[in-house]
């Protein structure tokens, strides 16, 4: 990260900037190509669209990556989400309360729809994984 991005930003929190800049779970950096589950959410025409891909066994998510077109809040949220979902037991996915991200990343209330997008995608993935294990 450049020194400039380490400076306090007056719009975005420093944690958001860190996640945005890091993008360790970006599918472009370390791609998932085969035998994976995936979910999409959002509207590509609204410039707010996400794709979550993961590899899982019967118990847990082994690897999870995202692709996205969206604002820094959405990009940072996905980075946080994947960090918190990787190696997570499938049964524990539900315990992640995404609405807390509003506070954690200081997401403004007019961007609340970001949480709905994440919830849609996570729920989709969770249902696919549960279906597979039952």
């Amino acid at each position, binding site marked *: *990260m*450049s*020194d*400039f*991005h380490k400076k306090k930003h007056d719009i*975005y929190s420093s944690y958001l*900037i860190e996640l*945005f*800049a890091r*993008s360790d779970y*970006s*599918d*472009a950096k370390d791609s998932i190509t085969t035998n994976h589950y*995936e979910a*999409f959410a959002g509207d*590509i*025409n*609204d*410039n*707010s*669209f*996400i*794709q979550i891909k993961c590899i899982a066994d019967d118990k847990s998510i082994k690897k999870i990556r*995202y*692709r*996205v*077109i*969206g*604002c*820094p809040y959405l*990009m940072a949220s996905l980075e946080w989400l994947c960090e918190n979902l990787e190696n997570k037991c499938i049964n524990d996915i539900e315990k992640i309360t995404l609405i807390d991200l509003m506070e954690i990343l200081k997401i403004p209330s*007019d961007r609340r729809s970001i949480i709905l997008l994440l919830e849609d995608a996570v729920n989709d993935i969770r249902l696919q994984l549960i279906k597979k294990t039952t």
Partner: protein
Amino acid sequence: MIGNNRNRKIYMDGAATMPTDPEVIESMLACLNNKELFANPSSVHASGRDAMHKIEKARDQISTLINANKEDLIFTSGATESNNLAIIGSAKFRANNGKHLITMTTEHKAVSGPFDYLEEEGFEVTRLRPGTDGLLDTKQLKKAIREDTQLVSIMHINNEIGAIQNIFEIASVCEDQGVLFHCDAAQSVGKISIDLKKLPIDLLSISAHKFYGPQGIGALFIKEAHKVKLLPITHGGEQEMWVRPGTLPLHQIIGFGVAAKLAMTRMREDLVLMEDLSNHFFEKIRNLPDIFLNGSDKSRYPGIVNIRAPGVNGESLLLLLEPLCVAQGSACNSKNSEPSHVLRELGLNDHEIQSSIRFSFTRDTTRDDVDFALEKYISAVNQLRKNYPSNINE
């Protein structure tokens, strides 16, 4: 990209505001530090008269820049106030003759706002749409003018895309039809030549900080101002030809005058620089896939380049581009998350609008700055595009 170690600020948002010229700053400081000059320019004592002499010198410098009579120029707080005064003041003055007004959909908020207000006050407003190049077809204007049309207001250089309207043709149509013509020239005065002895323009708005002068000062040219075609919109004094009250800010006006004087000598040189920077910019992006210019390339002020990169979110792009100072649209509209109304009028969809970025150069911009900006831009666009969702069933 985000790890690029070149972190100096590069300013490419000149359309929002230009850096104040050092000579302008010097003149303003000299004024503020001169106790002999400290006086209200409207006061009749010697110091007041001295201050007024300085005001008149600045008025002369600004009038010379646009080849207008200095008696036809009044000072305001900036182009927003000039636009409000020109549009609301003239519409209300002529309301008994008719209440039809004409403007364009791509005007700055400082023009569209007064028209919205007048509409609520019972005026009828026709808003003409540009072509996909951002330019007005004057046939449209001829068709739109009616018996009861009182005012046409069309900007000279568009602040978002740099499109230069054929203001001579537009002004001539209005003159032929006997309709008052106002032009928001905030982006053009001091940058391209304007000769008000040749252009049949009735009202022209000017902003000092758009051409290296101080913020907070502007002017309105009123053709044959002594005949008074405007009703004041603020009240409480007789300064500025009974149309605009308020104490004149001496140091700002002096700075404004110096900026005008400098523009007279540097305009040609500045324009050559803008053309060179613009050509260099396009040379660099010519072979890049899916990068498009927004607006006209034929009639465009070269200091403003607005491009879009589909597949990229503009807000994320702006963050990756820091410390580069560029814009997603008008600074006066930046608190509004609505997509740019100007780009929408060119026929772009939300996705295309949000992927657009405006680069606007200043006198201080170098080819090296353009190289650095584009290096960052290309890298950021590639980074964001790499992570674009795949296998989408749209």
